[in-house]
């Protein structure tokens, strides 16, 4: 069957596409691993940011403390303010501005707190969604494990099928060889029967010859009988003449002499008859032997016919079995086709799901691109903040210089300058702290820039991975397309198989019918052969009796001859004693009368001989007709056996074809088993990779949980900072109230403070921008989380489809197993599940 080979090719193609799919899944796994690594790096960076934020909070704390101290100093300065005369109203107003700006800063701080609050909440949501993803991954691993178990079972059952198919092939081979032997033996039988027919024909011809010879013998005997009749009449005449010549002695002598010569002739004739009878006996003997041979050969023919009948019966039952098993194959093939249609449906649904996955990946890609733009913007803002910090640093340096010179002036002023010196000292300390904080801020900004750079790099990697994922999904889609095509081709092949199998059923039915006819015919032949044997045996018996009869005839004829020879001798003695006869004529008459009596007796016996020879002739003729019957019967038998041989050859040819199919079947099933093994190995790899994915996702979950906790801490610290800044603002308000009458020299300081306030305002402006960017990032993160969720649900659908595919695979494997077992007639092993 050509469709078998085609199906093999299709199966190989399907196995190939499965292997490709497995390797692609491995690539996807690698990409996911890389993605997990970059996620870990991001988590580490977030940790660094958090640490920097903590440092910032600490320095803000310190600033608050210093502010309090400054407030105290301002309290002391109030007592000496009267001495410093022309108040420090400029400074006061500057301080008020500072206070207002600090109040603004407090507001900003609160906004920052709220923003970090929102960030923490978003992070917690992200952690929850990652946990959900982890659960989905665990389910995926579980289903992959189940798939592995099913594939392993399928593989073992297919191996079982292969084994059984091979056994079936071996059995069919045996049956085929048996049928071939039968065919050859039938051919031999046919030739033997033909030889027998020829021999019987030659025997019939021989019989015709025998009949002719016997006819001749009969006519000879009739002639001899008439001669004996004549002899008898002559003897009677002789007796009469003896009686008349009793007186005439002289005449008697001549008469005696002629009588002697006549006797000699008779004796010769009888001798001839004896010889002929002898020949007759020999012919009958050989005839009987030939008949016995015929009987023996007819017996062997009957035996052979019996054997042929038995073989034909076995062949008929085998053909019937073959027919029913082929019918079962037809139904099984029908089931296979239905299953392959279901597989095609599942593959189509998977293709739709893969399309949805590709869409989700492109959405992720958009969100990532948005995140990258936001990160870049953030880096630019950080640079701006660095510039502002530099300006603050410069102002702080100037303030320090101013306060030092104020201290020197105060010292020079002596007792009057004491309070002023204290204030100058405090201002210097504040400026130093501001410089230190600016340094810290610069450090933090540098760290932030590094983090932003890392984040941009990680985002680029993520973008690339998303592209790769999209490409891989595309490849998976094309792989599914290939599978779909393969399934359709498989469907066509199965339709071809089904058609071929139906043809096979019809052919097998024909074989079964002809085998049944053959069986009947061979049975009739066996019966006829048996009858023939019986007839031949009775013929042989008749031949034996004929032989006995011929022997008796021969013996009788021999005795006749001997008696005649004695008669001739006696006649010779008669001739020689004619002299003495003439002397005792009376005695002679008496003896002549005796002679006449003897002649009459001789005639009677000759007549008996003729009768017996005629009987013999009749028997031989009947035998010849019997032999003719045998010859025609044998001819009929030869014809029947030849037909039988032809039928056996056809069966042998059919069996050879069946054997070839079985071998092909076994080979196909073996290849199927190998492909199943490979599928099993591929599925095992998938399961292992899925387990690794689950592990990585769990680790991600842990990292995200830690991150959420840290964000919570940051939120708390930010709140504390806001509170501290609030207190600081209050302290500064008090300072502003008490320092309303400070000197004009402080106005420069106030101007510096105003500049500082402006710078701080810039800082807070920058901080607002940063906050806006952070909000945008969190929005992008939310979008990302939503997309991830959609992707996870798509992955769940894919898992369900894979489960459906697996079930369809199992059913297919069962059907394939039952196909492989069909010809053996055993129940399909799938019925044990």
């Amino acid at each position: 069957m050509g469709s078998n080979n085609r199906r093999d090719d299709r199966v190989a193609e399907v196995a190939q596409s499965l292997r490709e799919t497995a390797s692609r899944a491995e690539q996807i796994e690698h990409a996911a691993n890389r993605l997990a690594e970059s996620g870990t790096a991001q988590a580490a960076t977030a940790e660094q940011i958090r640490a920097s934020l903590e440092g910032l909070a600490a320095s803000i704390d310190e600033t608050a403390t210093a502010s309090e101290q400054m407030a105290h100093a301002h309290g002391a300065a109030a007592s000496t303010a009267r001495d410093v005369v022309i108040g420090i109203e400029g400074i006061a107003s500057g301080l008020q501005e500072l206070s207002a700006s600090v109040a603004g800063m407090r507001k900003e701080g609160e906004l920052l707190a709220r923003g970090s609050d929102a960030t923490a909440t978003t992070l917690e949501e992200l952690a929850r969604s990652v946990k959900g993803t982890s659960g989905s991954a665990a389910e995926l691993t579980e289903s992959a494990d189940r798939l592995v178990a099913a594939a392993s079972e399928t593989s073992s059952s297919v191996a079982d099928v292969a084994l059984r198919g091979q056994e079936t092939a071996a059995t069919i081979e045996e049956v085929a060889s048996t049928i071939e032997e039968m065919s050859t033996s039938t051919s031999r039988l046919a030739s033997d029967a033909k030889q027998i027919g020829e021999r019987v024909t030659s025997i019939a011809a021989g019989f015709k010859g025998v009949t002719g010879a016997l006819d001749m013998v009969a006519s000879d005997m009739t002639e001899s009988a008439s001669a004996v009749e004549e002899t008898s009449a002559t003897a009677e005449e002789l007796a009469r003449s003896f009686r008349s010549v009793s007186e005439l002695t002289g005449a008697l002598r001549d008469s005696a002499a002629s009588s002697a010569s006549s006797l000699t002739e008779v004796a010769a004739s009888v001798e001839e008859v004896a010889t002929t009878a002898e020949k007759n006996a020999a012919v009958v003997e050989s005839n009987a032997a030939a008949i016995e041979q015929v009987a023996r050969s007819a017996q062997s023919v009957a035996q052979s016919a019996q054997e042929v009948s038995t073989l034909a019966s076995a062949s008929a039952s085998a053909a019937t079995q073959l027919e029913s098993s082929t019918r079962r194959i037809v139904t099984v093939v029908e089931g296979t086709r239905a299953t392959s249609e279901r597989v095609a449906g599942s593959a189509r649904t998977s293709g739709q799901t893969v399309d949805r996955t590709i869409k989700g990946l492109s959405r992720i890609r958009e969100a990532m691109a948005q995140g990258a733009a936001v990160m870049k913007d953030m880096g630019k803002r950080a640079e701006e903040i660095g510039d502002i910090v530099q300006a603050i640093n410069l102002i702080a340096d100037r303030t320090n210089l101013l306060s030092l010179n104020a201290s020197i002036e105060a010292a020079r002023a002596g007792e009057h300058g004491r309070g002023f010196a204290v204030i100058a000292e405090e201002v210097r300390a504040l400026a130093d702290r501001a410089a230190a904080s600016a340094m810290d801020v610069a450090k933090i900004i540098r760290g932030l820039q590094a983090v932003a750079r890392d984040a941009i790099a990680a985002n680029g990697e993520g973008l690339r991975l998303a592209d790769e994922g999209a490409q891989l999904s595309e490849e998976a889609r094309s792989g599914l397309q290939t599978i779909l095509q393969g399934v359709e081709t498989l469907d066509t092949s199965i339709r071809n198989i089904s058609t071929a199998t139906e043809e096979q059923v019809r052919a097998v039915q024909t074989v079964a019918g002809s085998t049944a006819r053959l069986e009947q015919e061979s049975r009739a032949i066996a019966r006829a052969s048996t009858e023939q044997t019986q007839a031949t045996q009775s013929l042989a018996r008749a031949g034996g009796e004929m032989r006995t009869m011929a022997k008796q005839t021969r013996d009788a004829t021999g005795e006749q001859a001997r008696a005649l020879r004695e008669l001739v001798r006696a006649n010779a003695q008669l001739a020689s004693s004619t002299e003495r006869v003439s002397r005792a004529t009376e005695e002679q008459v008496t003896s002549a009368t005796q002679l006449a009596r003897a002649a009459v007796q001789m005639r009677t016996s000759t007549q008996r001989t003729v009768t017996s020879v005629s009987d013999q002739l009749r028997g031989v003729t009947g035998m010849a007709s019997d032999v003719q019957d045998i010859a025609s019967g044998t001819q009929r038998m030869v014809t029947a056996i030849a037909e039988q041989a032809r039928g056996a050859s056809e069966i042998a040819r059919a069996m050879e074809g069946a054997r070839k199919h079985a071998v092909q079947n076994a080979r196909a099933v073996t290849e199927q088993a190998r492909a199943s093994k490979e599928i099993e190995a591929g599925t095992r790899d998938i399961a292992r990779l899925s387990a690794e994915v689950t592990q990585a996702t769990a680790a991600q979950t842990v990292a995200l949980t830690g991150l959420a906790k840290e964000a919570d801490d940051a939120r708390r610290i930010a709140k504390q900072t806001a509170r501290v800044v609030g207190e600081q603002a209050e302290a500064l308000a008090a300072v502003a109230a008490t320092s309303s009458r400070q000197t004009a020299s402080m106005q420069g300081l106030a101007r510096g403070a105003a500049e500082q306030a402006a710078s701080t305002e810039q800082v807070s402006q920058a901080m607002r921008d940063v906050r806006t960017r952070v909000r945008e990032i969190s929005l992008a993160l939310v979008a990302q989380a939503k997309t991830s969720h959609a992707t996870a649900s798509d992955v769940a659908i894919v898992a369900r489809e894979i489960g459906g595919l697996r079930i369809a695979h199992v059913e297919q494997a069962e059907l394939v197993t039952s196909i492989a077992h069909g010809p053996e007639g055993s129940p399909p092993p799938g019925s044990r599940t």
Partner: protein
Amino acid sequence: MGLHVAFRIDKAEYVVPTEQVLYLESYEAATHIPGAPPYVAGIVQARGRLVPVVDVRHRFGLPPIEHSIDRRVVVVQVGTRVAGLLVDSAREVLQIDAAAFEKPPEVIEQQSAGFVKGVAAIAKRLFLLVDVPRVIGEELSHG
């Protein structure tokens, strides 16, 4: 009184009594004076007057450093002579009683070429009292 201006050269801290200090200035650059001694960085304009600047690092035999925002000029007056001391940084005034200063150990005295008059230890910090006339030197009286 006992108020001192503290400054830093390399890793050591030095003090000058405020009585000898007029004021402090930030330092950007000095105009070089041809023929001046090598430890004179040049002259600067401060509060409307021209002040010769002594590079104290050079005077103390230390290698030059790169310019930084921390570098300052301490403008001192000895008698009628006004001069600037270019120092690595000067960000502090502090109260040190005269009694707190001790005679420097011999090793320091030898190495500092007589620029250090005394040493005061305050809260684990060591302050070296600079002999201002010596640091600005007779060379400036010529100039």
